[in-house]
């Protein structure tokens, strides 16, 4: 800040460059350049999705000759029917929704409780917990994939529906630190007078959390819910480890990847599956994009 204001004096006063009309014209020109760049960027971002959508409607022969075109003459809706049955999409969708919902609930509950207790109370051992949480920032989850697998095996969480439990536990555990830090910064904004008056009214520690603190930070909890939804729905590595050998308990992503390994050239059917897997997140994003962006930015600022 200080350097910036100091250095502005270095430049000689050459403000009188150009008459107003020329300035206005050049501004118009610059706006044109800006819009051109933005349109190019928007096209690059959107085109792959639109291309995916049109690929998903092509015929077995047409898919290889379409090239860059987005137009589909004879939409083949049966591609969706084919992926629906071949990759067991209904089952995978139920599994994905189940994992996402349970993780969202578990993460919101556990991280908000811990963040509340760590913010409100100064109990012996608090500092130890804080240091441990901070240290986990330095340990990449990928490094613990192998030992965590064997931990789950000893807990009898490998095989059939129990693998779903392993996925939920591993991902819930992995989401703790980031969200606790995010929520702690919000609990810190709650004035202690509110807790004091709740205590005078006879509300207990847990009661105060449930009835007062939790509702007060609802916007932050919505952020956690949204980021969790996105992260768990899109998760690949953890479900791959635990579910790739459990055909009936796969998520959409894993079912789709495994389908692609079996039918390597049925790109139009794969594209239909990709559309099915992507649409829920895209729809939620379009409606709540402001909160997505705010949440992610806030997370980065806190981190």
């Amino acid at each position, binding site marked *: 800040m200080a350097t910036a204001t100091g250095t502005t004096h270095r430049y000689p006063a050459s403000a009188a460059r150009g008459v107003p009309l020329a300035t206005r014209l050049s501004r118009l020109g610059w706006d044109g350049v800006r819009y051109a760049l933005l349109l190019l960027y928007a096209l690059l971002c959107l085109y792959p999705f639109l291309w995916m959508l049109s690929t998903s409607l092509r015929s077995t022969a047409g898919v290889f000759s379409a090239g860059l075109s987005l137009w589909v003459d004879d939409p083949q809706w049966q591609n969706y029917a084919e992926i629906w049955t071949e990759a067991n999409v209904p089952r995978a969708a139920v599994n994905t929704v189940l994992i996402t919902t349970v993780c969202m609930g578990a993460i919101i509950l556990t991280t908000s409780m811990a963040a509340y207790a760590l913010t409100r109370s100064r109990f012996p051992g608090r500092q130890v917990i804080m240091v441990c949480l901070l240290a986990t920032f330095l340990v990449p989850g990928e490094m613990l994939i192998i030992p965590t697998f064997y931990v789950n095996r000893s807990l009898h969480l490998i095989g059939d529906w129990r693998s779903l439990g392993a996925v939920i536990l591993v991902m819930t555990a992995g989401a703790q630190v980031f969200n606790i830090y995010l929520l702690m910064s919000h609990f810190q904004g709650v004035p202690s007078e509110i807790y004091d008056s709740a205590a005078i009214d006879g509300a207990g520690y847990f009661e105060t959390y449930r009835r007062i603190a939790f509702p007060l930070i609802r916007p932050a909890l919505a952020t956690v819910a949204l980021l969790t939804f996105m992260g768990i729905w899109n998760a690949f590595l953890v479900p791959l480890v635990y579910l790739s050998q459990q055909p009936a308990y796969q998520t959409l992503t894993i079912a*789709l990847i495994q389908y692609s390994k079996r039918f390597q050239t049925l790109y139009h059917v794969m594209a239909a599956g990709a559309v099915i897997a992507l649409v829920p997140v895209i729809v939620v994003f379009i409606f709540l994009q402001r909160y997505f*962006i705010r949440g992610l930015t806030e997370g980065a600022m806190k981190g």
Partner: protein
Amino acid sequence: MATTAVSAPLAAGQRRGRASSLRPHLPAYLMCAPTVLMFLVFMAFPIVFVLYTSLLNWDGITSIFDARWVGFDNYQTLVRDATWWTAVRNTVLYAVLKLAIELPIALLIALILGAKLRGATVFRTIGFLPVVTSIAVVSLAFTFFFSPLGGAFNTLLINLGAIDAPIAFLGERRYAFWTVTGVAVWHDLGINMVFFLAALQTVSRDLYEAADLDGATAWSKFREITLPAIRPMTAVIVMLSLAGSLKVFDHFAVMTGGGPGFSTTTMVLYMFRYTSFGGGGLAGTQTIPNIGYGSTVAIGLGLIVFAAVLLQQWIARWQEGR
């Protein structure tokens, strides 16, 4: 501060006094219990366990109690393992490339969007769209996009006259790594754009107005006001991007599976090579069940991520002190 105030009399007190002074905190302990339990089971114990298994010759299938203790043999193998270093080189190159490509473009788009243009929100939403989508699923579509069999990208290049015959962009050593990196840049650019946009909003308007009065050019305003103001956020972006890139797995696993050969293998992919789980989902990956060595690879990965974080912190501090 408050903790020390509470714990000082505790240390002086007797055992009974300690127990009774913990009781009022019981609800707080209970509320931290799930987190602490998960930390112990899925974080603390696995760290000890991976250190232990890295000293064993264990295939992960037979009982761990029958595994042979080999001391630091796995580490000696790792240091001399040329393929491991290929994986390290690929991963580090990927991390550096992503930063070098993404930062300038993301900043440029953020600067344009920050200039209060009409429709900026729409462009911001579109630019952010790839970020929220699953990169594993998107990679599946890009596998066909870059395919030599009627893939759109080859058609484009042939139509432009840039190439005569289709190229297997994901199947040839010369192109595969760059193609996957390109897809990753496409997917992640939006998040850095949004980070920069947030940083730009914190820059004081007064500074620009003062500079205007002094007749500063746009470039000098950018260099003397904007860049210093967004430096803290840039440090955060670099840290997040580096930490993410060094753990890269999804799109390499889906698009190339580390191939051809080991030309696109990453540290995490290489770790998976020595496990029996998950292999079913990877393209053309032959797995060798050797949990002992896989654990050593995992620790190598952890050390490199740790070193990168330290290096980045050190550079950031050095820049601030300058």
